[in-house]
């Protein structure tokens, strides 16, 4: 459930089980059934600034790794006696297995919020250490990192949903972006755009089932709900999900939808041609006008999402990551010092979000979870030229402040895409009704995932 800067599929999902017939169960023999997992341990003591030692930290590869590398340099200056081995690792493929086996563990790692709840028993309980920062940290981020009242991840990025729109096309159609306050307003705006240009299908709806479900969760999360409650029970059969699914059906019935895969060629073509002009999506969509769009560069703007009810929350989260410390880490206290520096100390979060060699204007694809790092009057990244010089920081942090808290993301969330994600696609294709999406998905998720968790 992490945000992506580029179009991606789930090709990162490990390398287990190629043609896994019975004989391929061999590697499993290394961890015989019956071996008990370690009890979650509580990390409480904070080492002094003169702490010494060596830690291994895992991170994703790519540009984000380079950004963190620079930020870790700042940490090294603050804590010269701590040696940090910062490693780029295929975390999705490796971390869960490493936590289970307990061998060659890092002292800390970046991880999707969606995966933390399912592995809490292998992680340090960080509740006491986070306590001083708790009141000022996003309620949503705390909620997804909390299992049975204990916090297992250091909340890192917050990915608020925004409404991305083509300013020029809305102006031509006589639509005032400031007036898009509810989702009914958004449908009305889409109709106006199509009246102006009959070829327009202004609203983007996602064709990739995984991202589609992530998008659905953003829209539901905006109303304070999520696929599973705090006990891991499915709560799809609710007024909030019906609101979203009925709204999607209305948009489809009115032929207002461009149904394409996130930033694939067909999507880009529809964005460039003006066929798509309204994209409710996470802040990380800012990547598109900055890196991918040519004709549309400078014409897109961001606004808070519309609300589901007048005066309701103007954003929901779409993805996000945190930092974890394995329960069997060798130097957990030192890893905590690093994460405390990156998440809660000004030189740390500024080094990540501020201008860098990789992102000269700063990292614009998310905002910090920690309130003091998210002040509207103290932007960490600069106005974005590809958005006509808009102050994206202010829009994003204002939206982020309204995101309601949720519940821990269940370990089976990604698997539920086979049911809910696919049924959502059927709804967008006009092959399924909202109530059927809810009934069928609930039944299958319950039988195949919840009952067997």
């Amino acid at each position, binding site marked *: 459930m992490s945000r992506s800067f580029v179009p991606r599929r789930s090709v990162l999902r490990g390398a287990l089980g*190629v043609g896994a017939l019975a004989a391929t169960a061999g590697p499993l023999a290394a961890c015989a059934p019956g071996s008990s997992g370690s009890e979650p341990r509580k990390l409480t003591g904070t080492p002094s600034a003169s702490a010494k030692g060596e830690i291994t930290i895992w991170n994703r590869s790519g540009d984000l790794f380079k950004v963190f590398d620079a930020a870790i340099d700042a940490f090294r200056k603050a804590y010269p006696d701590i040696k940090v081995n910062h490693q780029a690792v295929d975390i999705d493929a490796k971390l869960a297995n490493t936590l289970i086996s307990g061998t060659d563990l890092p002292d800390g790692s970046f991880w999707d919020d969606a995966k933390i709840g399912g592995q809490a028993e292998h992680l340090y309980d960080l509740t006491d250490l986070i306590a001083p920062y708790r009141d000022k940290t996003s309620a949503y981020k705390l909620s997804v990192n909390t299992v049975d009242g204990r916090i297992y991840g250091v909340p890192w990025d917050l990915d608020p949903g925004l409404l991305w729109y083509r300013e020029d096309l809305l102006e031509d159609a006589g639509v005032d972006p400031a007036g898009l306050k509810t989702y009914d307003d958004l449908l009305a705006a889409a109709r106006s755009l199509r009246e102006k240009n009959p070829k327009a299908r202004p609203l983007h709806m996602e064709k990739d089932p995984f991202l589609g479900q992530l998008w659905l969760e953003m829209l539901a999360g905006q109303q304070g709900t999520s696929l599973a409650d705090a006990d891991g029970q499915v709560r799809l059969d609710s007024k909030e999900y019906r609101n979203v699914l009925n709204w999607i059906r209305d948009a489809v019935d009115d032929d207002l939808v461009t149904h394409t895969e996130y930033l694939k060629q067909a999507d880009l073509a529809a964005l460039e041609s003006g066929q798509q002009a309204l994209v409710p999506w996470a802040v990380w969509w800012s990547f598109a006008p900055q890196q991918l769009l040519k004709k549309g560069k400078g014409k897109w703007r961001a606004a808070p999402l519309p609300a589901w009810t007048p005066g309701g929350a103007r954003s929901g989260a779409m993805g996000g990551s945190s930092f974890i410390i394995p329960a069997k880490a060798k130097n957990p206290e030192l890893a905590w010092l690093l994460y405390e520096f990156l998440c809660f100390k000004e030189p740390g979060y500024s080094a990540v979000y501020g201008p860098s060699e990789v992102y000269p204007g700063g990292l614009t694809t998310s905002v910090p979870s920690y309130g003091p790092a998210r002040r509207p009057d103290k932007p960490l990244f600069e106005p974005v030229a590809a958005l006509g010089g808009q102050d994206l920081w202010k829009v994003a942090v204002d939206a982020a402040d309204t995101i309601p808290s949720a519940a821990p993301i269940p370990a089976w969330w990604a*698997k539920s895409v086979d049911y809910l994600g696919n049924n959502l696609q059927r709804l967008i294709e006009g092959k399924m009704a909202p109530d059927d999406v809810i009934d069928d998905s609930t039944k299958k998720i319950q039988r195949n995932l919840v009952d067997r968790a």
Partner: protein
Amino acid sequence: MTSGTLTPPRKERTAPAAPRPGRSSRRRPFLAPYLFIAPFYVVFAAFGLYPLVFALQLSFTDWKGAGAANFIGLENYTYLLTSEEFWSSLGNSAVMWLLIVPVQIVGGLAAAVLLANARLRLRGMFRVAFIAPFVTPLVAMAQVWIVAFDTDYGLVNHLFNLVGLPDVDWLQSTAWAKPTLALLFLWKTTGFAIIILLAGLQAVPADVYEAAALDGASRKRQFWSLTLPLVRRSIAFLVVVQTLAVFQMFAEPFVVTQGGPYGSTSTGGLYLYNHILASDLGTGAANSFLLVLLVFALSLLSVRLLRSRDE
């Protein structure tokens, strides 16, 4: 014979006989062959037999890769046998089998007959051309497939457009995703089928054909009455091996479609993998054994159907 010099000294004659070999020495000649083959059995026991027994044990538990493994009897098996997705994955594999195996046997046999013809020019080049996809890494080929069959910018749709045909959603429509994957599998493995069939054809003595020709048998008659019966065993072998491969097919859908759209390319192998990915190892193990039983039964059936009456 009177010469004392020719008589062996008595001392030597009465010298005590060499000590009789002990029990261990007597065993040595018998042990040696076993010691020679032992490395195979040790490796087989460690990496073949033990995992098999382990997986069988696992299939009766709810083990998730950590914590205690609780014995749950046949629950994993009953779950799978009543699961829509399990049967759907087998149905997908069965359709893939129909799209692949008959086509491959017919096409492979035709190509092998052509390549066996000594008068064919550039025979070596053709042989290399057929074998090349077989030795190319599958993941690389799968990436080519993704690009070539992309709806928006793929080469195949571009060619379709050139002759006035509309775009086809090759990998994103339930109607076309399976044939597109089957084509990838055929492209990759038909070279292997040709090798096997060519070897079978070349094992047929030339004088059999000469005798048939003298008796007035046409080329067509020779094919149906000689070639086909004589390569029957090679065909049976291929059917068994490819049945195994199709039902275990994993990498092709994993890389190209991830089982989509709507699970229409979720094969038996990929469905099994998804249990392992979700750390549901008990269900994964049970799924393995159900798949093994099915493939075993299908292989047995294929061999029986292809067995000649005199065998």
